[in-house]
């Protein structure tokens, strides 16, 4: 839930106090927004190979744990669909691309290192 009251100027307070309150409100708002942001993800895999299988399993688990109900995941086989491959300039597979929210990020590998994936998805800070 958004809290618009917190962002408004409250009469009778000092300027310094108002500034402090605004910063807090902005931070909370940003946090709130992060929790509701829709993710559009694209996972490039190379056919039925072992690392690709592992990547699918790991990405799906992370999405269900951190982004349940607010993500779209397309799994693209670079052998089958070459047109999307060209658009996204994929060099290796598996590659996970966070298309939204911006900025665009690429994570290469089988996504076994969960922390690396969470940083890439902007879900935790480095």
């Amino acid at each position, binding site marked *: 839930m958004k809290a618009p009251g917190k962002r408004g100027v409250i009469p009778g307070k000092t300027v310094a106090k108002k500034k402090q309150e605004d910063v807090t409100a902005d931070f909370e708002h940003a946090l709130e927004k992060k929790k509701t942001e829709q993710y559009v993800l694209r996972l490039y895999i190379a056919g039925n190979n072992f690392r690709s299988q592992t990547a699918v399993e790991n990405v799906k688990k992370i999405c269900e744990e951190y982004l349940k109900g607010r993500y779209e*995941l397309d799994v693209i086989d670079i052998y089958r669909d070459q047109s999307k491959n060209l658009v996204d300039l994929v060099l290796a597979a598996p590659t996970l691309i966070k298309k939204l929210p911006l900025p665009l990020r690429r994570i290469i590998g089988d996504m076994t290192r969960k922390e690396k994936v969470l940083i890439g998805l902007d879900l935790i800070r480095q």
Partner: protein
Amino acid sequence: MTKKTAGGIALEQESADLRKEVGELRGKVRELEETLDAIRSGEVDAIVVSKGDSRQVYTLNGADHPYRALVENIGEGALTLSRTGMILYTNTRFAEMVQVSPENVPGTSILDHVCPEHRTEIEKALDGIVEKACRLYVRIRQGIGSLPVLISMSPLSSDENTKISVVVTDRREDESRIQLQARMLDAVGDAVVAVDNDHRIIFWNEGAAMTYGWRPEEVLGHTTMEIIVPELLKDDILKIMAQIERGESWSGEFLVRHRDGHKFPVHRIDSPVFDDEGTLIAIISTSHDISERRRAEEELVASVQEKEVLIHEIHHRVKNNLQVMSGLLDMTRTRSRDEYTKSILTDMMLRIQTMAQIHTRMYEGKQLGKICLTDQIRDQVVGLSEIFSNEGRKIRCQITPDEVFLPVDQALPCALVVNEILSNVYKHAFIGREQGTIGISVIEENGRIRITVRDNGIGLPDNFDISRTNSLGLKLIRSLVKHQLNGSLTFMSRNGTEISLEFPVTPAGK
């Protein structure tokens, strides 16, 4: 020139270092970009990947290309599942089957694509997949409808966390063929029921529903013992099973129970069904309600019995009447003082007695319509010797017969002919002699009967000719043999007389 401060010198130095570093970095970035461009634009044949001590070379036109092409073009759905059933890889065919874009299938669970009624089966199969590969006939979701498929799952390794490879086969054609076969079996008027090796019903056609009163959905999975309760002994069942297991069909009749509780007889044929390896996989049986036939048979038997009783009664009455007549003639005969009259009356009495004997045999005999000729001749000899023994002669009679049976319409004329011949022998063959012997033989050979009466008496007169005789007895013999028996007669006079009578046996009722 202004003198540079120490701080200024240090700053310049730092700036120069940074410029140098940026220059080096630019060079490295350019090199990296060129490498990446070369790989991306296909200017290389292979990529070398190093990990620790091992080094792997990946050719860009991979050795697994034929395998990928096979999986993609096989025409069957192909999947790789995680141990929990998550789809890690799908080929295009499976995505088409479930009508979902191939990009959205990986990451979903196999259970998301299976119709709800089959989910438990799949879950169980996944649980036990490490021990056992499995094949399941299920329906998968296809848009708003569903599709019958065969799912074959096998583990990729014996590891507890093994991946699972799955082949999904479209069974629509199978299903429509099966439906056609089921419709054909429904069209058969008889009850067609198939059971598996545990005797559980796996097929029950419309005929079975009509015959036993149970709908297929009510009985599938139950045993036939529970449903139709056949009245068979345990030994019989074991015997039937042994025959079926040998690959033979069994057929027989027994009582079964209808849903409403009434029992009725069926004629059933059980046949084994084997798979390609020759293992018994099912037993199919066709049953036909034979209540109507049984009823008709019982009515027929009752009617035949009734008619037999009536026929016996008629023969009995005819015999009684003939015996009364014979008795009347006997009384008249013994009172007659004139020998000629007495002789005529005796002949008449004997003829009527012979006919009465035939009718007695008719209702006493077990084989209706067949008369034992030898017994008849024996009785006739006894009757004749009683009548003619008071003349003071000793006449022995030997009968060497086969057991010969004749139909009624031949037995009566035949007995009359034998009566005439024997009467003549008793009356004429031993005139002037104290004793004599008569031999009678009855032989059946190649569908013909030959009766020979031989005596050692005085023989026939020299000028004897049967066609010219005026005697009633001989005329009777000639007429009966010729017209009723379609036979022939021969007379021979040597050390007595030999008369032979031969005729073909006609089957009863003709």
